C-alpha cells in the first residue's frame, strides 16, 4: 500500500507537471524531483516502473504520441497505435509477457461500460 500511495502521489504530480509544464506549481524542485524518482523507482515492481515512465514521459515524446495509445517497455515507447487492444496484441506478439504499461497520451475519452448492478 505504501508503494501504491507513493506511485499515486508521483503519478498525480507528474500528470499535473506534464499539463502545466512547470515544476514550481507542484512544489518539487527539479533536483528533489530526480532524487524522488530514484528512490521511488527502487521501491517499484517492473510494471510500476513502466507506469512511472509513462507518467513522467518527456513533453517532446508526449507531443509526438499525442492522441495515441502507447506501450511503455524499458522506459521507452515500444509500440503505439489508435487502440489499446491493438497495441496490447502487437506488444505481446513482439515482447511476450514482458513488463509493460499501456496508456493513452493526452485526454482519454471514456469507454462506455454497463451501469453497475447492486
Amino acid at each position, binding site marked *: 500500500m505504501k508503494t501504491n500511495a507513493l506511485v499515486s502521489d508521483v503519478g498525480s504530480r507528474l500528470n499535473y507537471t506534464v499539463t502545466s509544464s512547470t515544476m514550481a506549481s507542484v512544489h518539487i524542485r527539479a533536483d528533489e524531483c530526480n532524487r524522488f524518482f530514484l528512490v521511488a523507482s527502487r521501491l517499484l515492481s517492473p510494471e510500476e516502473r513502466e507506469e512511472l515512465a509513462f507518467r513522467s514521459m518527456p513533453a517532446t515524446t508526449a507531443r509526438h504520441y499525442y492522441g495515441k495509445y502507447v506501450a511503455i517497455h524499458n522506459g521507452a515507447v515500444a509500440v503505439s497505435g489508435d487502440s*489499446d487492444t491493438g497495441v496490447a496484441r502487437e506488444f505481446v506478439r513482439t515482447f511476450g*509477457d514482458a513488463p509493460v*504499461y*499501456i496508456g493513452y497520451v493526452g485526454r482519454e475519452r*471514456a469507454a462506455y461500460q*454497463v451501469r453497475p*448492478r447492486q
Partner: protein
Amino acid sequence: MPAYLNAPWRPGVALAPIARIHVKKNGGDEAVMALLDSGADYTQIPTATVTNLGLKKKGDRLVDRKDGLPPTSVPTYVTDIILEGVTFRDVLVSGTDDFGFDGTPWALVGRDILNEGVILDGPRKWFTVTDPSSASVAPVPPSARPPQAY
C-alpha cells in the same frame, strides 16, 4: 448455436446472450459467467479472476459507466478469452466487479470480442461464435448506409 438464456436479474421476462466463458493465462483457467454486451466497448472480468490467475496489470483505461458519476480509471490485463470453444487471444480486458448478480461479479464480453467473431441473433434468440483466425470467416459486407455524424 447457443441459445439465449433467462437473465437471472429478470427471470422469466428477459432472454439474454449469456455464456460461461473461460479466462486463460499463465497455465490457469477460470470459468466465469458473462453477458455478451454490445453496449460495452471493452471486455471486463471480475477482480477475483485477476487474482486467481495471477494476472499482471498492463495499463489503465478510462471508463464511463453512465451512472452519473465521473469516469474512473480501471486496470487492464492481457488474457485469452474462450467463448463457446473459440479462443480470442491476447485480449486487453478491464478488471472490475461493477457488473454481477446476487453479489457475484460477472464478466462482460464487449465489442472488442463481439466484433471479431460473434453474431447476436435477437429474433432467433441465439448467438454464433466463429474463430477470428479462421480463413472461413466470411467478410462482413459494408453497410449500405453512409456514415452518420453524431
